[in-house]
């Protein structure tokens, strides 16, 4: 006999948790970024580039972007589930969102680690 446990309510927990954790990471980053920007006040290209080239800044910005794209996925998926009812169209749009976000993630890494 198959022992089935009815646990309907936990299916969305992972997405929910990803959304919250990524939100906290981005909030902390926004505060750090604002403080760093206010103290460094980069006024030209060289200063702006040096601002993002700091070791900790690169890693912090990477964590921010990773959180951003995960967060955007959960949010866009929620929106598509609520408003786009035809399954085929929703699937197509979800795939499009994933492609855009993964593409943006690669682009962000390229921007941060370009010499």
């Amino acid at each position: 006999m198959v022992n089935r446990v009815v646990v309907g309510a936990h299916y969305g927990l992972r997405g929910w948790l990803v959304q919250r954790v990524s939100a906290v990471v981005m909030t902390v980053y926004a505060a750090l970024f604002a403080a760093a920007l206010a103290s460094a006040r980069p006024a030209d290209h060289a200063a702006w580039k040096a601002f993002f080239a700091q070791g900790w800044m690169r890693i912090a910005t990477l964590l921010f972007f990773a959180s951003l794209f995960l967060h955007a996925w959960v949010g866009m998926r929620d929106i598509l589930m609520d408003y786009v009812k035809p399954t085929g169209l929703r699937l197509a749009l979800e795939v499009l969102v994933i492609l855009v976000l993964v593409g943006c993630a690669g682009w962000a890494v390229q921007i941060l680690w370009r010499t």
Partner: protein
Amino acid sequence: MPDAALKKNRPLWYNLSLLNLPLPGVVSILHRISGALLFLFAAWLLYLLDASLDSPERYAAIKATLVHPLARLVLLGLLWAFLHHLCAGVRYLFLDIHKGVDLPTARLTSGLVLGVSVALTAVLGVMLLW
């Protein structure tokens, strides 16, 4: 049966705008709209970051482009979208841990989210864009 005839001919008047969206509802739908806006403009913002970090020439070109009133308006809108999404998001994190769920507090914090995000947009907009 005059009553039945009367009932049948009554106009249907489902004017949903009569149901005013409460303040927490306004914050909620704006949270969704601002999030969608930030997603839609994410690639453009990434493009701006890319170009500004690439070379002094592209940095200068981006700086010149962003002087345009339309570009400033869009950036100001996105700044508001980010700040509203951030403030409303912090409010939701507190609601998650059951802080501020009673109606008077929920209304108060909704008003705060709307007001603080607009005020911060004005202050940061002036500091960063002008």
